[in-house]
């Protein structure tokens, strides 16, 4: 296994967030009743003519520029011919030899090292319909077809075979998703299929310059699936070669439940798409000035934003990377920082408790009930000493669950911090009286039990005692006892 290295390339399909489809005026909205978002053009009825939606071209150029591609001066559409029930015309309008964009790249960071991954090409095409099976595709008695998705605009982004590990593949996908989300041309939701990924993978002896025979893995429905499927497929290929076998060039399906890839042998495996220029669409001559206008309209992208966070807010690189990984989280963070100057404090809460709760509830930050103003209010309550840091965490959980203001929660639940020395001193006395053995241990030199006693004070005040005061008063009392 150690003598081998993997060579991985990813083909990523991204649905563009236009209002209408690429060649007709049907809506692109996700969901809806089956076969309700269709017209004669996207159904491929005889005699219809597709017309390109200019917005698709604009969005595709925008994504390509964000990925550092060169935009073609001249481009055209082609027909990719194959029979499958999700394709009503029996051909997909795509781009073959003159794609919209080429020669891009993006930078990923794995184990602290920055690596540049090439992007060979980006082209535009129409999406196919959706098939529904009962159980699996091979055992279902029949299948159902919904053509709502047919004709939704896609860009296909083909990486160079520059990736060497499943971790690099995941990092590439995450970065690609972040960049495209930042441009606003797609939601990139893998669970809704607006970002889909196929992986090409081969293995070779380390040091070898030639590529091994590759397989293509399909049915990768999450970032995790991509990583797991690649790890499995690399192991499988190495095992085949080690036993003296050879790799068959084929398409394999990832089986998420079993954790294996399976050969999809079928008669159509002999791919012969017989591409030819789409006669119903005329070529594109892309205006340079327009391209430059689109370039100028690009928003700040993840790498730039990350650098700015380090410079402007003085955040550690790690914080900056995590916060800018999605546009939504970065926007949230900046809304908070606009209201509250301590960026590191905000970062700790957003990366820590907030992210933890979002993950645990499988929620996107845009659906979070805590508004930036409320998070800042909570930080201010801590600064003023109204509540302790420990209580703040409890209040935060309540805010997350209910969306209530922190002041309201503190008032309702009586969580205001106790800063009255007399009150805390009384509790300290009670705790010492109730734990004579522990006190004796402390006086006998077992300093470690001090933490237990602090804990008892906090417990008796339901966490509301000011921690510094509780510590100081307890220490004073014990030292007094020692002196006797």
């Amino acid at each position, binding site marked *: 296994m150690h003598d081998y290295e993997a060579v991985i390339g990813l083909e990523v399909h991204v649905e563009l967030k236009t209002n209408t489809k690429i060649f007709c005026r049907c809506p692109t909205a996700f969901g809806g009743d089956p076969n*309700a978002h269709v017209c004669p053009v996207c159904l491929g009825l005889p005699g219809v003519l597709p017309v390109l939606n200019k917005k698709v071209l604009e969005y595709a150029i925008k994504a390509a520029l964000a990925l550092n591609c060169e935009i073609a001066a001249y481009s055209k559409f082609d027909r990719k011919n194959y029979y499958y029930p999700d394709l009503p015309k029996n051909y997909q309008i795509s781009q073959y030899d003159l794609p919209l964009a080429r020669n891009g790249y993006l930078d990923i960071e794995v184990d602290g090292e920055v690596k540049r991954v090439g992007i060979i090409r980006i082209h535009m095409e129409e999406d196919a319909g959706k098939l529904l099976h009962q159980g699996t595709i091979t055992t279902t008695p029949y299948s159902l077809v919904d053509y709502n998705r047919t004709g939704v605009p896609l860009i296909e982004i083909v990486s160079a075979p520059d990736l060497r590990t499943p971790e690099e593949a995941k990092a590439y996908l995450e970065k690609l998703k972040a960049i495209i989300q930042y441009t606003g041309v797609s939601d990139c939701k893998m669970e809704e299929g607006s970002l889909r990924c196929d992986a090409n993978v081969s293995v070779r002896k380390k040091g070898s310059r030639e590529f091994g025979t590759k397989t293509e893995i399909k049915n990768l429905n999450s970032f995790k699936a991509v990583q797991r499927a690649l790890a499995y497929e690399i192991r499988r290929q190495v095992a085949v070669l080690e036993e003296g076998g050879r790799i068959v060039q084929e398409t394999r399906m990832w089986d998420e439940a079993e954790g294996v890839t399976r050969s999809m042998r079928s008669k159509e495996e002999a791919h*012969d798409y017989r591409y030819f220029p789409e006669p119903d669409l005329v070529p594109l001559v892309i205006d340079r000035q327009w391209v430059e206008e689109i370039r100028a309209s690009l928003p700040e992208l993840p790498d730039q934003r990350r650098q700015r966070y380090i410079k402007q807010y003085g955040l550690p690189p790690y914080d900056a990377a995590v916060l800018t990984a999605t546009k939504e989280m970065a926007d949230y963070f900046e809304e908070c920082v606009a209201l509250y100057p301590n960026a590191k404090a905000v970062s700790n809460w957003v990366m820590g408790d907030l992210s933890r709760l979002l993950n645990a509830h499988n929620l996107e930050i845009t659906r979070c009930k805590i508004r930036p103003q409320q998070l800042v209010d909570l930080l201010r309550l801590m600064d003023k000493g109204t509540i302790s840091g420990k209580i703040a965490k409890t209040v935060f959980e309540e805010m997350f669950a209910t969306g209530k203001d922190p002041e309201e929660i503190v008032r309702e639940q009586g969580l205001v911090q106790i800063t009255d020395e007399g009150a805390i001193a009384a509790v300290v006395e009670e705790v010492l009286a109730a734990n004579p053995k522990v006190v004796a241990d402390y006086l006998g030199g077992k300093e470690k039990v001090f933490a237990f006693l602090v804990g008892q004070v906090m417990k008796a005040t339901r966490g509301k005692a000011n921690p510094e005061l509780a510590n100081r008063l307890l220490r004073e009392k014990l030292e007094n006892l020692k002196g006797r």
Partner: protein
Amino acid sequence: MISIKEVEHVALLARLELSEEEKEMYARQLGAILEYAQMLNELDTADVPPTAHVLPLQNVWREKDEVGRQLEPEEVLANAPDREGQFFKVPRIV
């Protein structure tokens, strides 16, 4: 010339079932068409740029990204050989 094997391959891709006689006939006819088109190879096209389209048009597109009219579900499914609810129903694929 085009071989029987090539005819069978193209027929498979086009989902056509051909008899032996038909295969022979198409091999002959398709061969003749290709042979005729071969004449183009006699031309010197070194200085001719490739053509993607026969019309002298470019950049024909729809400016407005606004939703238009769709078909009613009953119209959509009017030609369906089989259906279930509002879905097209097809035989098992693989």
